[in-house]
């Protein structure tokens, strides 16, 4: 028997590996974005992809978000499978028409004649001192538009399997990569594998409260669960992984078991996706609740620059722990 050692790579490498494996499999996949080619990507994600496939399949664009997504819609309608990069999610609204009005709607408004298999990879989140225009979490905007799929993986393993699934899916997908996770390490199989879109994952089992989260907040929830365990509270950490379509069954099963739900996201609270999750629980698991559903979310402010203020903006394990403990004190 061969001794197969578990292999550890980081989140960025996992994303690149998914791109490379899929591009080897399907010649209709191309990558386009700002500095994704020669420069290797501003975060360095696409460098290895460019090295293997070159400028014919990894295309540098001008600073033209509208054209990056708009041409992806046309290319997808004509049969290609674009995987485009919008450097920061903050720039996604620049291409609001192309994403929200075109990519999301052409399958429906053309009566099912036209598919739009696009993946838009983009970096989200605060924590690098980039302030209001390079730090947002805008997933709620995307989740509100029917026709789009929204994925926000938290681990290298999930990032690779979900990106492969996203590329193979025939719908437009917004794939949110948290910039603080790029260096996160984890075990990742070498070959290709698919994690189904729309399936949440219990990252830690618990009995007293469910922490519902995604993206970078999964790490914070796991740290909080560890701290809570020391105080005798058993917290389950449910990583949604996909926001639309939402794995309601997994949410309901966990909350029915624990009787308490704390929803955690980095995005601003008002109009955030946490409100939708809370409504699902109130609607379908009200009878199981032993306490009110709580949200731990970013304040309703732009992301500030000052390190002191940015640290206060970002939800962390301490804030989650405090919210859970308050729930038990009530």
């Amino acid at each position, binding site marked *: 028997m061969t001794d197969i050692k578990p292999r550890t790579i980081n989140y960025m490498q996992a994303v690149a590996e998914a791109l490379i494996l899929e591009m080897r499999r399907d010649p209709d996949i*191309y990558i386009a974005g700002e500095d994704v080619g020669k420069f290797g990507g501003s975060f360095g994600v696409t460098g290895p992809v460019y090295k293997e496939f070159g400028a*014919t399949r990894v*295309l540098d*664009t*001008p600073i*033209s978000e*509208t*054209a990056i997504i*708009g*041409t*992806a*819609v*046309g*290319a*997808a*309608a*004509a*049969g*290609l499978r*674009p995987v485009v990069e919008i450097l920061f999610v903050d720039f996604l609204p620049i291409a609001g*028409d*192309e994403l929200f*009005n*075109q990519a999301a709607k*052409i*399958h*429906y*408004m*053309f*009566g*099912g*004649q*036209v*598919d739009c*298999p696009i993946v838009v990879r983009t970096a989200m989140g605060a924590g690098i001192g980039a302030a209001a225009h390079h730090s947002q979490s805008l997933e709620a905007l995307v989740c509100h538009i*029917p*026709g789009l*799929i929204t994925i926000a993986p938290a681990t290298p393993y999930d990032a690779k399997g979900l990106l492969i699934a996203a590329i193979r*899916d*025939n*719908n437009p997908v917004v794939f949110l990569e948290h910039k603080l996770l790029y260096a996160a390490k984890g075990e990742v199989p070498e070959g290709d594998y698919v994690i189904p*879109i*729309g399936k949440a994952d219990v990252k830690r089992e618990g009995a007293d409260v469910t922490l519902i989260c995604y993206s970078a907040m999964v790490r914070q929830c796991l740290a909080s669960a560890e701290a809570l365990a020391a105080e005798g509270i058993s917290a389950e950490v449910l990583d949604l992984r996909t926001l*639309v*379509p*939402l*794995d*309601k069954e997994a949410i309901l099963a966990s909350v029915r078991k624990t009787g308490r739900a704390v929803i955690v996201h980095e995005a601003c609270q008002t109009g955030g996706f946490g409100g939708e999750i809370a409504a699902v629980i109130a609607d379908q698991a009200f009878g199981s609740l032993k306490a009110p559903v709580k949200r731990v979310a970013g304040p309703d402010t732009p992301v500030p620059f000052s390190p002191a203020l940015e640290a206060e903006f970002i939800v962390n394990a301490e804030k989650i722990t405090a919210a859970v403990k308050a729930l038990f004190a009530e």
Partner: protein
Amino acid sequence: MGSVGEQVGSAGLIELYRCMVRIRSFEEHAHKTFLKGGMPGFLHLYSGEEAIAAGVMDVLAPDDYIVTSHRGHGHLLARGGDPKRMFAELYGRVDGYCRGKGGSMHIADMGHGMLGANGIVGAAVNIGTGAAFACKYRGDRRVSVAFFGDGSTNRGTFHEALNLAAIWELPAIYILENNHYGVANPQSDHTKLKDLADRAAAYGFPGVVVDGNDVLAVRAAAAEAVERARQGGGPTLIEAKTWRHWGHFIGDSAKYRDPVEHQSWLDRDPIPAFGKVLVAKGVATEAELQAIGEEVEAEMDAAIEYGRQSPFPDVSELTMDVYVGDPQGTSAGGRS
């Protein structure tokens, strides 16, 4: 009618005429019915601009792509679209091209490489550019043609798309149908340029001005641009100057236009003008042209009746085709 007319041949010339007459008849059937309250939504008529669709489509190959705007009926008809299914779509019926989900502003016909009309001014420019990228990426010598109006050229999407097409040297042809008004905003108020084709200079590819009411002039300019694109010579912007016979949409009386200028354009209606050429050159007689008009009227009478008779979609179709497939966890559906 010079050398181009001779290249087209008599039969081809008559087909160009018939194409324009079919578009006019389709639009005026829709117009009359709409004014009687028989059609939902709102309609943007192409009447007066027919020479552009007819001339451009005549030089395309069957597997080329086109994308168009909210004023897109003429393009699909010229491309070979079925007026019965178009009228059904205008009525919101299940036999429409989009099963009634798109309506007048969102008709697509993948069978004719028609990637959709579009309700967002300027969107076709970007989508057409993307289809042109697909042509180049596959190396299949197809081209992609985007149709849009003068108003579109003030949108950022126009500039980003043309610049990208230039640097990627895409087989894209941009047909700028300049009817001189962006809704009610005249060209003189929305740009300092006299010729919008000049904008191509900003991206480093040819911009051509053509009389959009002269079907053979449009055809010649399009033929040259298409050939250049097929040979790898990159994009062309063609500004076809024309005039809407009606307002921006049915119900817009277009009182903002100068009546004298309006009449001067009506006097240059592309259909009778081309008819006169055909008669003068002995290609057709007045009687033959009249017979074409009558045939087309009968065709469109039957087509609009087909649309009117088509059933509405079942209400269960509301949630169908939001996604490809049927993702659980949304209130939407695919097609199961």
